[in-house]
């Protein structure tokens, strides 16, 4: 099994997260580090993917300032999304060359991984035809937006709502999809879910789907 360095970083600003990923992508391409999975939370931030439409950001500058929400344009795929406390963000920096040089497969694998995580919490989650991400009957549980850099090195990744304050999604049209709700593990289960419990489940599901072995730091 290929090793996976799992780094739990706690709360990291979006800008620092971008810088760290940029460094790791270069290091991974050079073979200086193994495949790496970053697990973290961001402070309130709205990010725009390269395919984003600005009208999908509903909160104006004043409202964003009042609520302490940053705005960022990023190099990942996908439309607008929101990150904030209570949301488990996972950024895999993987070299896809050896075993899975297929963008769609990578997306589907990330979805499978998230479905397994939901399953670990007895939540039935599904793909939705034509919509990337993972969904329950209630709404979108996790968002996906990835980037593959030269040499098949991945960055960006998935954002799983664990105990996210879902009101913040009112400030955007998530992923440009207006008619679907957003949900979280807590909303689905009606109980509080500690972040550690969710990240444990995610690491296990990730290693299962991607056939990696987590390196215990």
């Amino acid at each position, binding site marked *: 099994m290929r090793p996976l360095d799992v780094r739990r970083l706690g709360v990291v600003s979006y800008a620092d997260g971008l810088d760290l990923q940029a460094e790791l992508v270069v290091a991974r391409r050079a073979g200086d580090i193994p495949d790496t999975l970053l697990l973290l939370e961001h402070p309130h931030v709205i990010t725009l993917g390269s395919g984003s439409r600005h009208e999908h950001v509903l909160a104006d500058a004043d409202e964003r300032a009042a609520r302490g929400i940053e705005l960022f344009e990023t*190099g990942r795929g996908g439309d607008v999304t929101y990150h904030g406390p209570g949301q488990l963000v996972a950024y895999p920096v993987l070299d896809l060359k050896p075993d899975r040089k297929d*963008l769609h497969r990578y997306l589907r694998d990330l979805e499978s991984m998230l479905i397994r995580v939901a399953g670990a919490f007895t939540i039935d989650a599904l793909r939705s035809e034509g919509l*990337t991400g993972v969904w329950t009957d209630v709404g979108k549980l996790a968002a996906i937006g990835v980037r593959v850099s*030269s040499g098949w090195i991945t960055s960006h990744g998935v954002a799983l709502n664990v105990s996210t304050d879902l009101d913040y999604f009112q400030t955007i049209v998530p992923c440009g999809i207006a008619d679907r709700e957003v949900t979280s593990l807590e909303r689905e289960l009606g109980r509080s879910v500690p972040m550690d419990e969710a990240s444990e489940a995610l690491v296990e599901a990730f290693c299962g789907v991607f056939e990696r072995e987590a390196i215990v730091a």
Partner: protein
Amino acid sequence: MARIEVPMPQMGESIAEGTVSQWMKQVGDAVERDEPILEISTDKVDAEIPAPSSGTLVEIVVPEGETVEVGTIVAYIETEAGAAVAAPAAAAADAPAAEAPAARTAPPVAAPVVETPAASGGDQSAEERLRTRSTPVVRKIAEEHGIDIVSVSGSGHAGRVTKQDILDFIESGASAPPAVPAAPAPAAPAAPVAPSAAPSDLWKQFYGEVKHPEYPVRAADRVEGMDRMRRLTAEHMVLAKRVTPHVHSFIEIDFSSIDRIRAANKARWAAQGARVSYTAFVAWAVSRVLREFPMVNSAVSGNNVIFRGNVNLGMAVDLNPGLIVPVVHDADHLGLIGVGNKIVDVATRARDKKLMPDEIQGATFTITNPGVLGTLVGLPVIPKGTSAILGTGAIEKKVVVVTDPETGADVMAIRKRSLFSLGYDHRIVDGADAARFLAALKVMLEDFPEDA
């Protein structure tokens, strides 16, 4: 000098096109081999495309924001003198484009600056020329319609057949379907594919939409619409057969042991109001044996196998007309009498149309009993989302050769026997698995536990 083509790379099996989201280099810029020169996006992925060779970016063919098929030339790079005539294929080796069939062979006479004669198209095979002249989308459409691409004139770069070319060709009727279907697979039904269908749409049509071919109606015929149940059944059967490779195995079961138990308990069960049919014995035994054969109680889901945590037995009930499959949930937690009563209960309510929605959902394995009407054996269709179905044939008295336990001599005896058939999904259940499952079921039924 050599002019190197930069094609839209194949970034995944099911990816037919990509959108140029950003040019990271401009015309006139020097580029290093493997240096990202543009960014493309497909779905929710952005990807950088590296230069296949070092040189100067001399032409950008596809501007930002435009979506083109895999294999389309998006730019040209001019290499230094004599740098590498054979560069395109080799240089692309580390790039994401490495596996792109379209990138493997550059069009032989694409560029005004021609490569060395040896590298030109003269000694290409027909197959190579064909690939050269078309993209995967076009080849797929051609295949679907049984069209020889060579017969289509190409309006694309270097005479390539574009998607529009082939769609126009189809619409013009030039591709009258051949008398013998090009593809032997039944997967290419008579139903025409909408000309605008992209591969993902074709995929959806294949799995998500069943179209039944239509036939001419003759004078004495009567035409009736299928009711909802018939339509659902028809669609389900087609999908199940399309998706699942079916194999069937058979075993003959001796019902002597079960008959003895039935005779011994007849009075007691009657007093309790218990209804223990042969089917109850079979369902009880199946629910126990299934625990030992998780693959028989599973479902192939994408590239995964879901091993079901419950044993929920679907019991096919003939409604004449029609058929419904109520489900005995967690059958492996019920005793013999419990299974028997439950089967009678759901079968009765099925005929009275009083089943609750959840009572026809969630089956993990199905039992059907064609034998009830005297049929010797059937080849049942596996319900989609499960991996196997058991068909029980008629239970009939037969003359069989048995060994007398006292004398050890072979003697003829009259026994109640029935042929069972197991239909199984050969993607997940191997023949030997099925044989072991049936053998274990036979042992259980022929030496039925007294305390079930």
